[in-house]
Structure formats: C-alpha cells, structure tokens
C-alpha cells in the first residue's frame, strides 16, 4: 500500500516509548490557578468576574472579546483572588484571572444538546463557541471560526489531525487509545456540519494499534475513513497533512477551506464532542510530561490553569538537574526558564532534557550541503533565507519564499553547521508581517 506523505521532512529520535504506555492519570488542582485571558489567537477575552467573586467549576469567567476570540472557564471552584498580569510560557505578560481553589469541586450542571445529530448547524457551532474551544495542537485558533467558512458546501474533507508527529509527545495517542469513541463521535459531529464533507482520521503509521482501533470503530461509516500516514516530521503540519491525505496544496496566502478542507487536532475534536454532546466546556487537557530528566514520564489530564511546576511534581519531579525545559514538543515548543507558569488550553507537553543539543552545538559557517533544502516541507531554501534575514534583506527574503516558512524547525535540526536557521527565518517573518501590517 502506498503511504500518504509529503516531500521533505526529517526523522528525529522519537522518544515516544518513555510515556507511550502510561495510561492517562487525572490530576487534582493545587491551591491557586491562573487563567490567562489570551489562550488563543484573536482578541483577548473579557473577564466576567471580579476580585472576591465565588466561582464554580465549569463557570464561565471570561467571555470572548470578539468573533475571533474564545471564552475562558474555571476548572475549579473557589474565589477570585485577583485579576492581574502574569507571565505565560511565551514570556509575555498577560492579564490573568487568579482563582484560589477551595478544593470542594462544586460544579456547574452541564447539559449537552440532546439530539445533536439532528440539531441545526447554528446550534452546534454556538455550543462549540460557548465552550471556548480553540485549536489544541498548539496554535489556539478558535474552532468555531474554523468551522464557519464562507461557503460550507464547498468543504469536502474534515480532517482530524491524529498524526502527532512531534517527537516525545504521546497525549494524542493516549487519547485515541482510551477514548476513541469520543474522537470518532467528535469528528462525526464536525462532518455533519458540512453537507458534502468526508471525515478523515489521519494517523501516523508508528501507531498501528491506534489505526486498527479507529478502523474498527469507523467500520460501516461511509462518511469517515482512517488514513495511515508515513511517520515523518512534520506530517501533522496543516499544509503537509492536507497534501498527504487529499493531494491538495495550500500556500501561505490561502486557508485550508480554500481547497475544501478543515483540519482539527484530535484533542480539539474530542473537546467538540464534550461540548456538543455533554455540554462540558474546555477546562481540561492531556499533557505529556516526559524527557530523560523526568523521574516518571507520564500522560496527565490536568485542569487548565495549574502551574507546570505542579504538573511536573505529579510526574515525580526531576531525576537529575535538567539543562533544558520545553513547553510543547521538542521541534516547535518554547524553552522555559521558570516552571511557575500556568498551563493553558494549548499546552501539549512538558519536556525536560539532561542535555541541551542547542547550546552544546557551536554554529559554524554554512557549507552549502543543501540538506535544509532537501528537508524543507515548504520547498524553500532555508540557507538563502537565513542569509537574507541576517542582512535584513526584505526583498530577497520575500522573493525566495520566506513567507512560506511554517517554522517547523526541520532546517535547524538537520543543519550540520548547526546554524539557527529557523530562528533567523522566524524573526524575519515577524518583521515582515509587522511591516505589512503597518502599511495597512
């Protein structure tokens, strides 16, 4: 059988065995939880509570600040301690609601849409919007916006991104192994929103048990199929995933909907099920805590808002002094210097490594080996782009397709001279985007 894949890409050390077979554990929240008002792409949410207010678990504490925005729910019951700026994993100071947990777990009563299979489209999207669901793979784009394309009839494929191509991460895998019904049902709900759509569960072939399980569950369903993808990073990048599963190509100037596709992460799909069928808002997520410096790597279901330090403690803490801590996957995650940061809707993992490859490697001059060009999934020339970026040559950068970069990190990974190619290109892209915005 031909495997579905794309051109370029790399095969980093997978490291999934550390936490792959650890069942999801549920974690209790600590005494204080932090809910940043920006956990998504778009306008910041507006607080609905004030200092001293009592809140329940599952209570909406901030409402969306616009259409492209998402509301925030409390994952514990307790009292609002204060509303103040707190630092998030990316290093930004973000206005946050701080809640003192009373450990009583008084919960709001959730009611889903009973007959969701026959409910009107608007009701379902409304439910998803109300639940504060955003893309949980990391980007955090509000899901209800994604599900409201200009022309719903033009959508041919709704793809559930079950690739989990980032090394070390196993949270999606555990989700699919333990709650496959919810994943499939969530995708059914999304597919039902689009008359002509076909659902695809796209799984990398390093998870054969998953593929088999999902195939069994979707047997007889002619609107959903499971596709096995070749294991390669970044197979789960949106543009690469669309190409691998449908053969359609999306560039930086297009949205997936332009080629009739909508891609949602497997966690997001599950959240859609929870929101629509059970009325549960997004206030929990699965985080993989792993790496060679973690005592007991595992997958933990955490209440959003707890700090990474607490999550780490749940995994036994460090077994040695780590050199590097990363929030997210090793390819696209953020390095952290402090664990006292809140987890958010988009937190996928906490990694701790004994050795840091990056600081150990001394960048040298480009030897023009061309490896970065061979592996670039965006089919651009990272070596040239990084040169242009170093010289702030905007015209050259754009001419050579710098804006097509998806910042996947393949070029930096493969570079034998250990040049920080992705970083250079990333900074230049930000500058170019800012300049374009300023022009408008």
């Amino acid at each position, binding site marked *: 059988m031909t495997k579905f894949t794309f051109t370029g890409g790399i095969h980093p050390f997978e490291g999934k065995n550390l936490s792959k077979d650890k069942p999801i554990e549920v974690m209790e929240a600590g005494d204080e939880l932090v809910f940043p008002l920006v956990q998504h792409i778009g306008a910041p949410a507006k607080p609905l509570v004030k200092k001293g207010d009592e809140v329940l678990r599952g209570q909406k504490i901030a409402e969306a600040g616009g259409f492209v925005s998402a509301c925030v729910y409390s994952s514990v019951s307790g009292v609002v301690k204060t509303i103040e700026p707190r630092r998030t994993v990316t290093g930004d100071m973000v206005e946050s609601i701080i809640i003192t947990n009373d450990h009583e777990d008084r919960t709001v009563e959730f009611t889903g849409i009973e007959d969701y299979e026959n409910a009107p489209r608007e009701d379902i999207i409304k439910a998803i919007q109300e639940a504060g669901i955003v893309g949980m793979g990391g980007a955090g784009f509000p899901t209800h916006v994604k599900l409201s394309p200009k022309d719903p009839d033009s959508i041919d494929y709704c793809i559930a991104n079950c690739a989990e191509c980032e090394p070390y991460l196993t949270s999606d895998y555990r989700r699919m192994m333990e709650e496959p019904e919810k994943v499939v049902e969530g995708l059914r709900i999304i597919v039902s929103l689009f008359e002509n759509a076909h659902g695809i569960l796209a799984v990398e072939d390093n998870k054969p048990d998953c593929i088999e399980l999902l195939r069994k569950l979707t047997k007889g369903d002619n609107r959903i199929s499971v596709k096995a993808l070749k294991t390669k990073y970044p197979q789960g990048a949106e543009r690469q995933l669309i190409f691998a599963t449908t053969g359609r190509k999306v560039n930086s100037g297009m949205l997936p909907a332009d080629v009739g596709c909508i891609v949602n992460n497997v966690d997001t799909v599950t959240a859609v099920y929870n929101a629509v069928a059970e009325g549960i808002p997004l206030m929990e997520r699965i985080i993989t805590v792993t790496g060679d410096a973690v005592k007991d790597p595992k997958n933990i279901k955490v209440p959003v808002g707890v700090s990474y330090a607490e999550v780490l403690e749940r995994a036994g803490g460090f077994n040695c002094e780590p050199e590097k801590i990363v929030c997210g996957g090793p390819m696209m995650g953020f*390095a952290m210097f*402090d664990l006292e940061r809140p987890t958010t809707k988009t937190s996928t993992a906490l990694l701790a490594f004994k050795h840091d490859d990056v600081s150990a490697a001394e960048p040298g001059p480009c030897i023009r080996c061309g490896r970065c*060009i061979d592996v670039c999934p965006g089919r651009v020339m990272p070596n040239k782009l990084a040169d242009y970026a170093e010289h702030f040559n905007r015209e050259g950068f754009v001419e050579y*397709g710098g804006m097509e970069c998806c910042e996947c*990190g393949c070029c930096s990974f493969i570079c034998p001279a250990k040049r920080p190619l992705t970083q250079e290109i990333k900074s230049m892209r930000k500058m170019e985007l800012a300049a374009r915005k300023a022009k408008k």
Partner: protein
Amino acid sequence: MADTENIKAKMKVSSNPHVRSVMTTRNIMICVIIALLPAFGFGIYNFGIRALLVVGVSVVSCVVSEILFCLICRKKITVGDMSAVVTGLLLGLNLPVSMPVWMTVLGSFFAIVVVKMVFGGLGQNFMNPALGGRAFLVISFPTAMTNFITDAYTGATPLAAIKAGESVDVMSMVIGKTGGTIGETSLICLVIGAAFLLIVGVIDLRVPASYILSFMIFAIAFGGHGFDPAFIAAQLAGGGLMLGAFFMATDYVTRPTTSFGQIVYGIFLGVMTGIFRFFGPNAEGVSFAILLGNLLTPLIERLTRPTAFGYTRKEFRKGGAK
C-alpha cells in the same frame, strides 16, 4: 519548590527546535577522509612510499597554511572542522608521485589561502580549493604535473595511450595497476569510498550519476569509437573521472544546492569533460570541467531554485502570495 529556584538560573533557553541531528560539519569531513583512505592506501601500494610523502606534505601544509592565515588575520583558528585535511588529501591524491616537495607545499598554500581563506574561509570559496591548487600547479609547472613516469610505469597513462591510438588493458585500470596521479588509478578503491559516502548520506547520486551518465553518452556520440564497450569502460575508469565525480564534483560548497540544479551541473560537467578529453589537446579534462562548473554554480542555483509548496512555478516566480 526549592529545587526549581535552584534550577532557574541554570536553565538554557533558545528558539525552537530544541533537538539537533548528530551530523556535524566535522563529522562530514571525517567521513570524506575515511572514504578517501582506500584510494590513498592503494596509491601507496602502487607507487611506493613516496606517495605517502607527497600526500602527507600536502595535508600538513594545507593545515599549517590555514593556521598561519588565521593567526596573521587574528581570526579564530578553524582547522578543527577538518576541511583543510580534506583539501590536502584531495590535492595530494591529484598529484603525480614524483612531485617535488616544494611545489606541493606551494600548491597547498595556494589552495587554502588564495582559493579558500581570502574569500572568507569554509563555505565562501567559489571554486574547489583542491582543484584550484591543482590548476595553479598545472599552469605553473606543467612538466612536473604531467610526469607520470615512475620505476613501475614507464609508459603513458591509459588515457594518453588511448588518445595516441594505443590499446589499454581495462582490467588493470579497474584494479588500478596503471600510471597516473596517486589517488586516481584504482576504480575499485574509489567506488568503495564513494559507496561509503552514499551509505552514510554524505553525498547523494544526483551529481555523480548525472555527470557519469552524460559523459558516457557524450563519449558514445563524440568519442570517435561509437558504442565500443572497451573504449567506454577505459574512458570511465581512466583519468580523474571517478575521483572527480564522487569526491570533487560533489563538494558541497562549489556545487549547486538545489536538487534540480545538481543534475544540471552534473550534465554540464559530463559534457565539458567530454569536450576537453575528445576535442582538446590533452587526454584529461575532469579538473578543468569541474572548475568551470564551479563558476556556473551561482547561476545554475538561481535558475533552478525550487518552487515553494502550494504554488505553480509561474505563480511563485511572479512573487507568490502577497
């Protein structure tokens, strides 16, 4: 969280990705050195211990030239990347065994300082340093550079013999029991080295295959012997073709980095080698073909740059998405 406080100060922070492949510039150079050892060993066996002297002098003077240049220019000493050793080895293997020591030293100096370091060091040279050094020696000392007469081999090199209309023994050319430069004679040893580089992923087949194939076709069409297997085999095994195709045309710095560009470059080299060999006054043509190709590399690279994902070629050339 006492230990978190403690750790905070030592934590390393960097932009993504946080993992890196094990392949480094130094490892690549070491792989190339290993791949050249069979040919080098055979050169010593074939030409005697003086081959070791010539190559040894070439390697040492390349490394010393680079150190001296760095010291004089007050730059960080860069010999740790091992590229000077590769240049020295390649240059040495491209010299006849009778090469006087002082000429070898001069050639190495030219290769490292004039061709590589003054342009900015590794990655900045516009032509292959070893071949640049060799070209310098060929022009400066033509007699010494073409003196292939040794105790063991008193006749012409196989290619010169073919050019003169004599017949050659292809089998001994494959093994390498012929006259020539130190490292070029043994087809078997060169292919073993090349296979190693292909397996470890240091080189790929795009340049060597397009080079050798296009040369073969050129030889059949214009070689003057038509499709004569013995002639073709002798042309492939003789001279510096194999050494050039697998070890010098594949030099990262001076070949195009785009995959299509590499094929164009290989074909260009094949055609130029054919022109030099069949229509020029000399029997040899590999090194000048590669040097010419080096000069065209920036142009080839520009013309063959890849089309970004999600565009047609035309759209992308017009500037892609705004």
